[in-house]
């Protein structure tokens, strides 16, 4: 028999973020992807189309993003790990099924490689303008998780985290890339499969009759199940009871929706990844995420050489927003600069979180290009003057 491709492509690679994301998903155990092409995310699914047939996975290009964002959920309920991939306009079309995933508690990963908007905008230019949409884009109350990578390496590493979180919390998990990270080649170390922490799907071990799909047996997340195990589950996007049956009353609504939200908000500390550097006793901390964090790294290094006591905080996890961590940063510095490639999204969260503790400055743009190091250096200087 011909030697089949290794499932995890262990080794050192020079690949772009989109491919790293695809490889990371494979390493995380993803075996079903439904997508619809859109710049600048298409390479992710193109890579899946190439890789999957040799490793027992399947990619299907659906007729549109509405289909792409629900098709993989059907696969997930069959027991596999699945995801979908898109960019701005397609992300907007997926919003109804983000809500569905939240309501059904489908472990699900949505990749959004952000481009400049609104509308068709600049399809091949970077932005970080969908950050609030990721949190609020679907109707109704719900909570989600969102991570943002700043390099191809992080694309690999954190898409694995996304899959793990989606299994653990059974909610939509967004991987908020941007065009620059997606299209940038860089060094990516893919460890041996055994070195990669992968949380496998845990299906209930309770037999039919003793199991209810939305009952909490432990913690705040119900036990997952798949079709064909004899449980004869009924799963609905209507407000439902523990059995999963429609429960058309406000009490059921309160119980269900509060749990959907609190299972995330009660676990901010577990979910949140924030990388800080040199924040203690600093004069300014630049808070940023995604590609902007690389620029912050560069700008802060430069200004430190010039004697400015500056630090950085990279928000790998954006949602749930970590108010506490922000307060902690505020307590250690004199100024905060929030830098993002939009006209002000996450900065509002930081402002809300830190209140009047320290001044929160904003450095942003309307997308289409990254924030230049010169501007950022200028801002750091201005703030610390």
């Amino acid at each position, binding site marked *: 028999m011909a030697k089949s491709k290794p499932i995890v492509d262990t080794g050192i690679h020079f690949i772009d973020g989109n491919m790293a994301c695809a490889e990371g998903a494979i390493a995380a155990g993803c075996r079903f992807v439904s997508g619809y092409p859109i710049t600048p995310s298409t390479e992710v699914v193109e890579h899946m189309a190439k890789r999957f047939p040799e490793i027992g996975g399947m990619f299907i290009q659906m*007729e549109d993003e509405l289909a792409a964002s629900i098709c993989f959920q059907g*696969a997930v*309920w069959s027991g596999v790990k699945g995801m979908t991939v898109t960019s701005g306009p397609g992300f907007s079309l997926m919003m*109804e099924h983000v809500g569905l995933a939240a309501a059904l508690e489908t472990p699900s990963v949505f990749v959004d490689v952000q481009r400049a908007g609104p509308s068709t905008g600049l399809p091949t230019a970077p932005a970080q303008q969908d950050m609030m949409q990721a949190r609020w884009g679907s109707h109704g109350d719900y909570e989600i998780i969102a991570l943002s990578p700043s390099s191809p390496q992080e694309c690999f590493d954190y898409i694995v985290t996304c899959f793990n979180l989606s299994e653990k919390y059974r909610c939509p998990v967004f991987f908020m890339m941007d065009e620059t990270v997606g299209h940038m080649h860089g060094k990516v170390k893919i460890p041996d499969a055994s070195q990669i922490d992968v949380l496998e799907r845990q299906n209930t071990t309770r037999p039919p009759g003793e199991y209810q799909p939305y009952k909490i047996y432990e913690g705040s997340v119900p036990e997952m199940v798949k079709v064909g195990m004899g449980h004869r589950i009924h799963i609905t996007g209507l407000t439902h009871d523990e059995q999963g049956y429609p429960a058309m009353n406000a009490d059921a609504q309160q119980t269900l929706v509060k749990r959907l939200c609190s299972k995330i908000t009660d676990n901010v500390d577990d979910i949140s990844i924030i990388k800080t550097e040199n924040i203690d006793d600093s004069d300014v901390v630049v808070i940023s995420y995604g590609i902007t964090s690389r620029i912050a790294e560069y700008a802060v290094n430069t200004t430190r050489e010039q004697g400015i006591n500056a630090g950085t905080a990279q928000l790998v996890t954006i949602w749930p927003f970590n108010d506490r961590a922000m307060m902690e940063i505020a307590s250690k510095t004199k100024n905060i600069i929030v830098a993002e490639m939009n006209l002000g999204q996450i900065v509002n969260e930081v402002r809300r979180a830190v209140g009047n503790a320290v001044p929160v400055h904003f450095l942003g743009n309307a997308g289409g290009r990254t924030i230049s190091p010169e501007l950022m250096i200028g801002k750091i200087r201005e703030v610390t003057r």
Partner: protein
Amino acid sequence: MTEIKSHPVDGLLRTDRMPHIWCPGCGVGTSVNCFTRAIEKLEMDLDKLHVVSGIGCTGRVAGYINVDSFHTTHGRALAFATGLSLSRPDSKVVVYSGDGDIAAIGGNHLIHAARRNVDMTVICVNNYTYGMTGGQVTPTTPDKALASTTPFGNFEHTFNIPNLVAASGGTYVARWTVFHVRQLTRAMVSALKHPGFSFIEVLSPCPTLYMRRNKLGAAVNLMEYFKESAVIENGADTRTVALNEGKTVLGEFVNVRLPTLRESYEERMKEALGEKFVPYEGSK
């Protein structure tokens, strides 16, 4: 004397949710009745039968059949079912939804699932209206019929759904009414056995929201109309089966065997990759 169950098909129903929400005389219930009989006839392994619905009165079917079942979003059941079906080659996935769900908002998924010949059975209960939301016009509402959004009578041309599905690539296409319980059941048996995309349009009365508004009397009146106007033409050219005043063409219109999506995928990959191809088996 045998133990008497409350109903012979109760084993296939979520009896804890009975009585169901459908109105007196609503044909959705009768169609489900036929469906359960078809399942029984086929002696299907119920662990390998999954029902997916969209939203609507008919969409509630998923909530009453006692198999793993999913009540998804309006119009998108077919897309969810595509993912499920591809991941469960040994199972039969059934999509059970209304005409609005399938042919209005869900039209794109209908034509594409048919094109791909995804292995699934679609049962579309056509009651000429949106029942769940109060009787609006649909792509199947007859000419001049009243609906809440066509208070002066419908003015849009209608779909000939079997023809649309056939033109899209559906490999099994039939139409029956809930009056034709035996034939409908038989058609369901055939559809469930069919590998690939099988589709049955089931004409059905909505006494509450379609018939009342159009002063068509009680549910049985439409049943009688179905009986009288029925012209059974198996193999009919689907272009000729549009629903016209006074004539309701019924039968199994299309039944051909073509590679299913999965089959052509595997064939293609084997051809291109040879032994390097590892088929997708989902999770078992």
